[in-house]
């Protein structure tokens, strides 16, 4: 429990007869970039929501940042960051205002917010847009901003749910640069994606198929195991008999 | 054109269209919460208007100050007490008390018998009773005064049975179209019109706009079917929903409220279908002017329903309104539907009485559809 950011044992989430997440077990080390892969409908988002304290598991155990997902959800939330598929920023607030709100809510002092937002704006190259409302920004910038907001309060772990949907490969690459930087700063990154090539960027990945963890290891190890040249092939091997193909 | 005579690609598109219509039905009927409200609304309105709400004036809180305490006052007070129009509250103690009683809302009328009332009647041949009415609601005040006058007249009759008025006109009243005395039946056409507006206008417009928002509209338009077919397909589930609602309301009115359908049900049904189509056309027009579901909803609910509520004439009498409102009401389709339903359902009149209104509704429908289709086609190109 000491150095593990996330621990899952037989975690299950059931809706009626349907097991969205079926007895998954894995561990994520501190400072790791952990890829949570799988096809649409495999159960990735459901699992992540449990880990974020948004959903109660049906059975099994999980600890995030050392806290129990059943009883200590509020403590978990204080220590994590989150970026959802919808890039949930407030469209009618400016960049600065969005940063201010989310950072403030996590307990960052007003002084620190002021100082560090200036730096953040510079780093992102958004000086000209700082006072504009987020709604008018192109998708790529919104993504980067959402990520920055998610890690502004320097959480122990940041959860990213399909963060790179809908943008070109260059922007995706830039986004991953930001992830690397965060990991270098000591933040554990838990990222779900269905882009198999992004798997190469992670330290370790797990692949979910039909609600279960079909494989968990580093990308290179997996490629060796399945005699594959790319992660796409690995995934194909694992998922071709999958029964569930959409959420 | 027979199914088999159609070229293959048309057959496929027809299948796609049917599948699409099926999906629309599924989508509509799966949203149980909205469905509950859509059926609950007319049911609740009928129950409320039919049983709970009434513009009749009765059970009025009244308090009496009897300064005379003689036989006459006692008799009169008892008469007031036994009238169902009044609900007698605690007697008034003094003049200041009256104001307080009005202020806490327990009474709407105060009656004061002066001292020596009885002896005045006996010896002087007459006496005056003081009545103070709360005219916040002007209608109440008028009717309350009327009721009291009637009670007094009755009592006078008792006092002087022999010396009755030498000239007495006795009115015999017939309540037309409403022998069961159901308060007002106005509301039934109103409830129907309202639910048509909600289902056929608001929901249809939102449904079409949703397709635009999701981007699936283009897929539909690629099919060899004309845009008209696509729009019709969208509208069909709401047409069905409206018809079900209509039948529900009629059943409730007939069996729960004992309202007869005096005229031809077929005619009523046909006119209602016409009006539903008018509402659908309105919904389609609205869906053409906006790309956002929220805006479509707002325009339908606020822009269409509010005028329907206010200016159709079923809730508030049109003749009281300034002429500009009356003019606007002539632009509102539900105004004509209201007249048609009243005539056919409640008065039992035939087509000869409503052909004008029917024509106007049909005309409105054609205009609305033409504009919507034109706009729709422009957007495509």
């Amino acid at each position: 429990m000491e150095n593990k950011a996330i621990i899952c044992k037989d975690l299950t989430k059931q809706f009626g007869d349907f097991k969205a997440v079926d007895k998954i077990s894995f561990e994520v080390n501190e400072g790791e970039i952990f890829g949570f892969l799988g096809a649409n409908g495999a159960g990735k988002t459901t699992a992540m929501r449990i880990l974020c304290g948004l959903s109660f598991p049906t059975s099994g155990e999980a600890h995030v940042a050392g806290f129990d997902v059943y009883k200590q959800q509020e403590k978990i939330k204080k220590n994590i960051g989150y970026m959802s598929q919808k890039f949930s920023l407030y469209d009618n607030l400016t960049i600065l205002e969005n940063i201010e709100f989310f950072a403030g809510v996590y307990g960052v002092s007003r002084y620190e917010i002021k100082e560090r937002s200036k730096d953040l704006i510079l780093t992102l190259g958004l000086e000209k847009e700082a006072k504009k409302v987020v709604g008018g920004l192109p998708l790529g910038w919104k993504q980067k901003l959402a990520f920055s907001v998610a890690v502004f309060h320097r959480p122990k772990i940041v959860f990213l749910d399909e963060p790179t949907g809908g943008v070109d490969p260059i922007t995706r690459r830039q986004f991953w640069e930001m992830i690397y930087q965060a990991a270098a700063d000591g933040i554990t990154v838990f990222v779900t994606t269905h882009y198999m090539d992004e798997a190469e960027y992670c330290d370790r990945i797990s692949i979910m198929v039909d609600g279960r963890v079909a494989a968990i290891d580093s990308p290179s190890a997996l490629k060796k195991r399945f005699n594959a040249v790319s992660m796409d092939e690995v995934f194909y091997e694992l998922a071709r008999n999958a029964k569930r193909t959409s959420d | 054109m027979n199914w088999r005579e159609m070229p293959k690609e048309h057959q496929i598109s027809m299948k796609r269209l049917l599948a699409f219509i099926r999906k629309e039905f599924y989508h509509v009927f799966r949203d149980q919460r909205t469905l509950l409200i859509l059926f609950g609304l007319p049911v609740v309105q009928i129950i409320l208007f039919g049983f709970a709400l009434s513009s009749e004036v009765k059970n009025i809180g009244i308090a009496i100050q009897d300064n005379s305490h003689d036989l006459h006052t006692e008799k009169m007070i008892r008469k007031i007490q036994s009238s169902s129009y009044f609900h007698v509250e605690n007697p008034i103690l003094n003049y200041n008390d009256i104001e307080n009683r009005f202020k806490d809302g327990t009474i709407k009328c105060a009656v004061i018998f002066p001292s020596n009332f009885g002896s005045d009647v006996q010896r002087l041949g007459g006496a005056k009773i003081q009545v103070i009415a709360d005219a916040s609601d002007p209608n109440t005040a008028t009717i309350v005064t009327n009721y009291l006058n009637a009670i007094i007249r009755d009592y006078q009759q008792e006092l002087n049975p022999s010396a009755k008025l030498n000239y007495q006109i006795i009115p015999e009243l017939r309540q037309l179209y409403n022998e069961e005395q159901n308060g007002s039946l106005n509301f039934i056409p109103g409830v129907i019109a309202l639910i048509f507006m909600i289902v056929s206008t608001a929901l249809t417009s939102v449904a079409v706009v949703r397709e635009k928002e999701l981007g699936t509209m283009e897929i539909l338009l690629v099919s060899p079917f004309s845009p008209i077919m696509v729009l019709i397909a969208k509208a069909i589930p709401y047409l069905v929903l409206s018809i079900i609602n209509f039948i529900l309301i009629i059943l409730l009115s007939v069996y729960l409220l004992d309202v007869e359908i005096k005229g031809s049900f077929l005619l009523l049904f046909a006119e209602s279908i016409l009006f539903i189509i008018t509402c659908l056309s309105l919904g389609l027009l609205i869906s053409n002017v906006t790309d956002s579901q929220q805006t479509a909803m707002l325009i339908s609910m606020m822009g269409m329903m509010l005028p329907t509520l206010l200016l159709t004439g079923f809730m508030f009498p049109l003749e009281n309104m300034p002429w500009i409102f009356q003019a606007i009401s002539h632009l509102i389709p539900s105004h004509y539907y209201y007249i048609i339903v009243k005539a056919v359902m409640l008065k039992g009149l035939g087509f000869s009485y409503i052909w004008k209104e029917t024509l106007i509704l049909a005309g409105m429908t054609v205009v609305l559809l033409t504009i919507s289709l034109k706009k729709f086609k422009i957007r495509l190109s």
Partner: protein
Amino acid sequence: MKVLGFILQKEFRQIFRDKTILAMMFFVPIFQLIILPLAANFEVKSVNIVYVDHDHSSYSQKLINKIGSSGYFHIVGAPSSYLEGLEFIEREDADLILEIPSGFERNLVREGSQKVNIAADAINGTKSNIGNAYLNVVLADFSNDLDIRYKLSPQSASVSPSLITLNSTNWYNPRAEYKYYMVPGILVLLLTLIGGFITALNIVKEKEIGTIEQINVTPIQKWQFILGKLIPFWIVGMIVFTVGLIVMYLIYGIFPQGSFLVLYLFAGVYLTALLGLGLLISTFADTQLQAMFIAYFFMMIFMLMSGFFTSTDSMPNWARIFSEFTPVTHFIKVVRLIVLKGSGLQEVGTELLYLFIFAIVLNSLAIYNYRKTN
């Protein structure tokens, strides 16, 4: 508390950038206060009547003249038969038919009494009731006139019967205009819209675009989130109320007779109760469309049952009990009392208590129902 500060900052920023809400704060009160009283007028100004005179006597002529000059009626025709008269009603050109039978004058003089037939279009109950009442007044007057003339004539030898008359005065609405009754009610409608509708829609919109999830994943606590929504909309509601009061005075000249403090106190508590309702509704809806329908459903029932349009006195017992359980009923009653009659805290204190209870119950339900984790 610091967190609450950040939340409120964000909410206020969003509200003032949301054109819909700004429109609501200013345009909608003005619009509703002007348009609604013009439309929502239940006064029966003039009733259309046709008469069928089978007698053609001087008495029937006198009666007809009296009706025409009474100011209550508008004579639209003089058909020669009842059936023809019916056509007027069918075409909605007339509301009442008065049929004077042949022998009217003769029977009145010889027998002392005579029946007349009245047929009223009873589809609109109010109109027919009032029309009938007016007609009765005219008929009674007519009888009285004849009677007086008879008594004043030398042939009369009868003892005049004792006459009890009413001396009636109207308080609180000297010109008996409907708008004094409606306008305070519209203020209530405004607050109801803000509390119920706008709040529910706002929260459900956050559900739809996903920002609620973002909030649920932060350490923001339930009470902070709820207060963060209640407080800004409460303030908006109070602003709207004030705008409404100003418009009411400027346009209608209605100045509350009672204390402003008491009025605002009630408004504040009522708004809190309605906000709780809006919050509760938002926990049941997933889309704005659903929220709109659910809110509309409840608002409609409340407004209809509240005594806004029709009096609660005339309701059957079960309906009256039901209306006691809605906060709208109490607030409408109080607003009319305070504005038109100047009632003070003493007189309406119990109503305040009821509103408090509503506020507590509704908000508790909403808080209980709102879950950060599913």
